[in-house]
Structures are given as C-alpha cells and as structure tokens.
C-alpha cells in the first residue's frame, strides 16, 4: 500500500543524490544534507517525501521528522510563489522591524509562516539577513529591500502583486 503511494509520486529530482548518499547517510551523518537537497528540489518536505527518504536510507521516519522539525530551515508546507523573508535581527528590531511586520502581515492578511490564499506570498521571519546597515530589511525572492517604512514595504508588495496580475491577464 505504502509502496503504491510512493510509486504515484515523482521523486526523481533527488534520485541522483540519494543514489550516491542514501546508503552511507545513517552512519556518516548525512541526513541533514539529504533533507536540504530534498527541500531544494521540492520546495518543502512533504510527509511522502520524508517517508521515501526513510525507506532509502533505512533511517526511521520518526527520527527523520525529529531532525527536520528541529531546524528552522525545513518547511513542511508548500511555499508561495514569492518568499518574503522579514528580518527580525537585532539591528532591524531596533530600527523598527515590528512595524514593518505589522504592515506586511496586515497588507497580506497572513502572519509569519503562512501563505496567502492565492499562493502568491509566503511570509517568513529570519534572524539577520546580514544587511544590518540597511535595516529594517526584508528579502523577497533573494532581493534585499532596505531602509523600509511601513509605507514603502506595502508599496513593494503592491508592485509585485500588480505585476503578477498583469501576467495572468
């Protein structure tokens, strides 16, 4: 039954990596690297994906879930089309990041860790993006936006949302 479920899903994206590393992962501490590769390929770790990794590495599923949930990098739900990483580091906090968070989450109607219903945005908090001199900072899809005010933050999201709308039409 479990086998069948796996067959219906496509794990080919991590297959090349697993082929090299699955056997040694258990004894050589390779689990975290495998989970990272898997998330890189699929965007998040689904239960099926973790079960499959368990099968291939002979590491117990409970152990895999235990490790994955320990680290904040791992996601267990699909991520929106645009990933917003809002810095909550010290420099950004001192320069008013909580106001930015309020503005962004009220604009999108979601709070930290959630994805908007239209699947456009996911909001994540991070501790320091390393651009403290531009604080408060957020990063959207890898681009950093600095010296934010609630107003400019909303404007940036507005621009992205509008351009998405145009694409769809």
């Amino acid at each position, binding site marked *: 039954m479990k086998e069948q479920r796996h067959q219906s899903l496509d794990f080919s994206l991590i297959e090349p990596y697993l082929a090299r590393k699955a056997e040694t992962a258990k004894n050589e501490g390779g689990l975290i690297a495998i989970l990272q590769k898997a998330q890189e390929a699929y965007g998040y770790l689904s239960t099926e994906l973790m079960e499959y990794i368990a099968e291939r590495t002979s590491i117990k599923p409970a152990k895999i879930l235990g490790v994955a949930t320990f680290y904040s990098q791992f996601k267990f739900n699909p991520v929106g089309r645009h990933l917003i990483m809002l810095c909550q580091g010290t420099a950004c906090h001192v320069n008013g990041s909580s106001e930015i968070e309020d503005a962004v989450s009220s604009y999108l109607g979601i709070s930290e860790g959630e994805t908007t219903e239209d699947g456009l945005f996911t909001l994540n908090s991070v501790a*320091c*993006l390393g*651009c*403290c001199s531009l604080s408060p900072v957020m990063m959207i899809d890898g681009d950093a936006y600095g010296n934010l005010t609630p107003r400019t933050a909303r404007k940036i999201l507005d621009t992205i949302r509008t351009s998405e709308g145009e694409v769809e039409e």
Partner: protein
Amino acid sequence: MRIVIGKGSCGVAAGAGKIEGIFKAEGFETGITGCIGMCYLEPIVEVYDSDVSGNEAKKTYVNVNEKAAREIINSLLGKKNQAGKYGLPEEDAAILAGQKRIALRNCGIINPEKIEEYTARGGYAGLKRSLALAPEAVIEEVKTSGLAGRGGAGFPTWFKWNAAKNSSGEEKYTICNADEGDPGAFMDRAIIEGDPHSVIEGMLIGAYAMGSSHGVVYVRAEYPLAIVRLNIALEQARDAGYLGKNIAGSGFDFDIRVKAGAGAFVCGEETALIASLEGERGMPRLKPPFPAQKGFWQKPSNINNVETYASVPWIFSHSGREFADIAKNSGITGAQATGTKVFALTGKIRKGGLVEVPIGMTVRKVIFDIGGGIKNGKAFKAVQLGGPSGGCVPAELADTVIDYQSLAKTGAIMGSGGMVVMDEDTCMVDVARFFLDFTCKESCGKCTHCRIGTKRMLEILNRIVGGYGEEEDIEILEQLANQVKEGSLCGLGQTAPNPVLTTLRYFKHEYRDHIVNRKCTAKQCKNFICYEIDAKKCKGCGLCKKDCPTAAISGEMKEPHTIKTADCIACRRCKDSCKFNAVKVGDRKWIQ
C-alpha cells in the same frame, strides 16, 4: 586599469550586481572583492590606475547608483563627467585609519575567488613557516601571541590546541564554527566571503599543530554566498597543493569539508554543533568530556571560531610577540588581552558596518570616533555586546575598555562581535524582551531551566511591556534570571538572562516606569503610546484619515484633524502618511 566592485552580501543587497552589469555592458572588465566594512556606503566601486612607473593609485566611489556608474564610465572614457561627486568622503576614509586590520586584512582588498591574490599579499607564508617548526613550537608561538577565542567565551587558543594534541587517537578533527548565530552580527560571514583562504590557512596551521588530518567548516544555512566562496577557495587550495596529501612536501595530510547548518542558534554551541554534524538534532550535552577528548564521532576535536582561525596566519607571517604588542603599538595601555577584535557595528549608529580595532580600545572610541556617533543627532543610551548571550553597556560606562575582563565586569561580554547601538528612542525593557523572545524560541528544550525558565521570564516581560506589569515582577524576574543562569545545561541557558540582568542593573527605572507610572519613556511600547495631530502643522489634507485602519481620525478637509485616542491602535500609519510631520507620539492615558 582595474575596476573592482564590492560584492559582499551587503554590496549585493545594495545593488552591486546591477552596477557590475552596467560596467560590463559598456565593455569594461570588472573584478570583485568582499566587504570593506563600510556597509552604509555600498555599492562601492574602486578604480585602480597605474602611472608610468607602475605605482597603483586607487580611486574609491561610494553609494554608486546607476547615474553614478554612468559618470564613472564617462570619466574612464575621458569624457566630461561628475564622477567626483561620488568619491569617498575624507571623513569616511578616516574611519579605516582608526582601525587595525588583522582578521580583515584582505577583506575588501583582494578578489576572494582568486588564490593568487591571497598569496600575493603574503598568504600561505604563515603556513610554510609553521610547517618548518615542530608542532610544540607552533603551539608555543600561539601562546606567545595571547590569541583567545573570538567566538564568545575567549578561551586561550593555544590551550585548546594543546589539549587536542595531547589527546590520544589517530584520527582528530579540526572544526571551524561558522554558525554565527547572533542576530545582528556578520563578522564571520564577511571574513569567509571576503577572504576564505585566511580561514583555510588558519585551520591548516592548527591541524598541523594538533596532528589532525580532517577539517570541517560548519556554515550557517543563511549564508549561501559564503558557502560558494569557501568551496571555490578549497578547490583552489587543493590544486595549489595546500590541501591534500603531503602538503608542501612536509608529509602532513589535511583536507576540509563544508557542512551547511540548518538554522538553529544552539548549534553554535560546541557539543550541539557536533551533534548536528553527525546528522542529529542539534542538542548540547554535558561537558566534560570536552570535544578535545571526545568530539566529532567520539574522536578528539578542536573547535574554533572563524575569526580565531583567520588571525592565526598573521601570527605566523609576523610573530606572536607582534600580535601581543598590537595594543601597545597603537598607544593603548592597560588591555588585559591581546590582538584585535572585529565588531559588527549596527543599530542607531551613523556609520554602521564592520570594524576591527585593537583590543583595549574604549567603547566610546569605537562608537564615536570610528562609527561617527549616533544617527540623527540623538543621545547615546546604551550598546548591546554579545547579542542574546551578552548584555548592555550604558552610556555612562562608555569608557569601558574592550577586553574580556573589563566587559565582564559590566555584566556584558565580549561575545562574537555584535555591537548594537541604542539611542534615547530605544526602550530597554523592550530590548530585553526581544532577546529573551529569541533565546526562548531557540532553546532546544533539553533542560528544564532553560526551556521553562526563559518562557516564564518572557511572559513577565510581555506583561510589563504590555502594560500589565506588577510591582513584584521585577523581583521575580531577577530570581528567575539567576536560577536559569545557574541551572541550565549549556551556554545558551546560562547566558540567556544576561540581557535582562544588565538592563535591570542599569535601567531599572525604565522597568519601574512601565510598571508603576504606566509609561514608556522611549515612547516605543505600543500600549503606552498614542498618536496626536499637531493642529498648527496639520493642513487637513486627509491622507491620514484615509489610511487609518480603525477610522479613529476625523476632520474636515483643509481643517486640522484629530485622533480619537480610544480607537487608536498605535499602528503608526498616520505618522508615515503625513507629509507635514504633524503627527506626534504622545503618552496614552492609563485608567487604573
């Protein structure tokens, strides 16, 4: 002529990639370099020109936007231009002069992706010198230098190396801690991004002294660029024969692997880091046994911070004595430690960025002489050192000397190098709450004091900043803080109460203000403030009224508006939308 663009993470964030593209599109070849430390001036473009006799002169352009790039290109083409406008201001050039760069010696100068630029500046000379010495002599030289760990605790490096050397076992591990968990600090990232070979060379020297042949660098997950640059450097070092078998003909074998962390602050702690390297949940364990006896895979291991390793090659290309005398030679007396320390200067500072200063300099000098003082002419209130594990040093103690002991006396720590400056508008209770919120979330949950103690402390702090604090809260908070400090298993819990304890020590009146007077003097805590409109400045444009989410603002067009305090949720939108600076922050009246 060479054009070099600053492409550290800070430069990239400020748009260096786009600027690079403009130069490339115009047919210019460009090189890259890491972070020079003046992050507030990024993107930075440097033009090196040699005159007839081959002397290189350098022109530095700062805050280079598209327009500036065009002007610089015009100047390069000999056309009429205004590139001069974007030159490095003298005042900013002076910032570098006050520093002593050892760990950052190549950052912002060389191309981190080219090993030949590293060796041209004396790279790998320290390795060659140390390989000619006996391992004991290498450790002795480090002892002379007085180098202490830059990762936080400040433990003498030679001692750790010696312990690992004397530990029996064939297989030993040399580990570099690049987890850099302190939010608001980025020294280690800048070093790896800007000068990866210095870390590799430092690890090589340490490994040789300890008799270790395996190296691992544990890099924080959020540092993708550092991982890329490190891997390039490792590849080049292998090709050049600095890594692998029989290094430089000495019979010594060593190689380094990179492991990416996965986002957990506690993994900066040595034993948790090892657990994470082994693919487990990153939980710390009781010491002893220390990693030097039983570390990675139960083998003797030595863990040092990035900056510690990066300082080592300098000690061997110069001398241990010279490193120990840096403070003296910079005219500083009375320092109780040696060498230099890199700080990430951030917060309410005018010239934020990375600075490296001789240990023994005062906090005041770093903030005012190098960092240019406080933003917007505000008053300096305190500086947080050591991030969530550290404490604040108040303005009245600004003459404290930066060394491990003097800082410990104030209740703060040297830490890994985060230096967050706070001004009169920063609420210290909120700062304590902020750090505790961080450590509470990051507690791994293994020991009770840390898991539950930090949670209870956070609840009290939330109550105080929320306006529901009670008189006895201060005492309970103090008691809890001391219990968590004493009862926790690892450094995370043992240091987590520090921000609370130091703010209680120096800013108890702010706690009392919140609890007794129901007032936030810094006007930062939302439940204590409300927004008011200055009738004299208000032009009645109606923008704030339109933006207010709770319809708390009323008024006719062209007439001064007013805010109904009872409906105001202090979201600040009105203040942001006002073009006439008519919205002020006031104290919310509390009904007891």
